């Protein structure tokens, strides 16, 4: 993305470039947000829900989020499951292989903090944020497939604030929507009858 970064920085400095920059940002963010291909880093129980999420009943693909086993194709890594000390280097390596820009969703209590394996164990890494930058934390043991969809939608919101010019990304003003407010342009994610 070096070229785009340079372009962004150059536009930012050019008089009148700001307008082009914002339009470019809008296009980039729109396209990125609608095709967040995910790297399913499923290691344990949560991986089952990750599989369920992309199958016919919950149909993840409709959000443009297609699971790809190859890190080179992916934008977002979904860490679903317990990460042990033996596994952590492999996760790190796969993350490094993903092209920028990239995001991480920590799915399930284990990936968030170690969860049920926080105490007394000698081999579990307490949360994937010990070695990866996590964008969305998703609690639950395991989280339901709908929560994973919600996490992807949250991530899309976050992606929509990105700018290609360094240092120009906006902050999400309200990370938590008011209770009951449906998100813009998205059908509400249903309960058991979502499929």
């Amino acid at each position: 993305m070096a070229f785009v970064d340079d372009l962004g920085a150059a536009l930012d400095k050019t008089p009148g470039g700001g307008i082009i920059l914002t339009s470019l940002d809008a296009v980039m963010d729109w396209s990125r947000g609608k095709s967040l291909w995910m790297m399913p880093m499923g290691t344990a129980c949560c991986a089952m829900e990750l599989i369920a999420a992309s199958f016919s009943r919950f149909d993840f693909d409709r959000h443009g989020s297609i699971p790809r086993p190859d890190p080179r194709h992916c934008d977002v890594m979904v860490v679903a499951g317990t990460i042990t000390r033996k596994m952590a280097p492999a996760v790190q390596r796969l993350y490094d292989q993903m092209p920028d820009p990239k995001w991480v969703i920590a799915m399930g209590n284990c990936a968030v903090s170690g969860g049920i394996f926080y105490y007394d164990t000698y081999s579990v890494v307490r949360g994937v944020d010990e070695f990866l930058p996590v964008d969305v934390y998703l609690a639950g043991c395991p989280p339901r497939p709908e929560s994973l969809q919600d996490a992807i939608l949250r991530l899309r919101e976050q992606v929509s604030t990105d700018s290609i010019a360094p240092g120009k990304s906006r902050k999400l003003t309200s990370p938590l929507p008011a209770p009951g407010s449906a998100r813009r342009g998205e059908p509400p994610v249903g309960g058991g009858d979502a499929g």
Partner: protein
Amino acid sequence: MNINELREHLCSEYPDLCPLFSVEFGDGVLVVEAKRLHDAASDLRDLGFDRLGMVTAVDTGDEFELVYRLQSREMHAGIFVKARVPRDTASIASVTDLWPAANWQEREVYDLFGITFEGHPDLRRILLTDDWVGHPLRKDYEDDRIIRRPDYI
């Protein structure tokens, strides 16, 4: 075959194993000396215990107790064979030559307890990384990465 028949059978075929046989919670238990374990296991295998279900160990403080569970399809019976080895020279004969199933199971016991199995073809760590220090299932295992769970009871 129930436990009592198993005991009679064992007593008639292998009189020297009989005094070592007891029944605990409905299971037959054979406690042998560590150096006789391999012989006892091979006798039992000849008797029809054709499956090695499990190999594990228990840290009892100053000794390790090795626990083998054998199963016989023909007799529909299971039996425990136990042997104790001292903690500082924890080593016992491998039964991989009798049941290949012991291969991975003994590696696991070696990994988590640090008990060596003589005659094992490939004794390496299996679950933990090769450079791991210590054997976690020992009661005196120390690791500063462990956070003890607070006592609620």
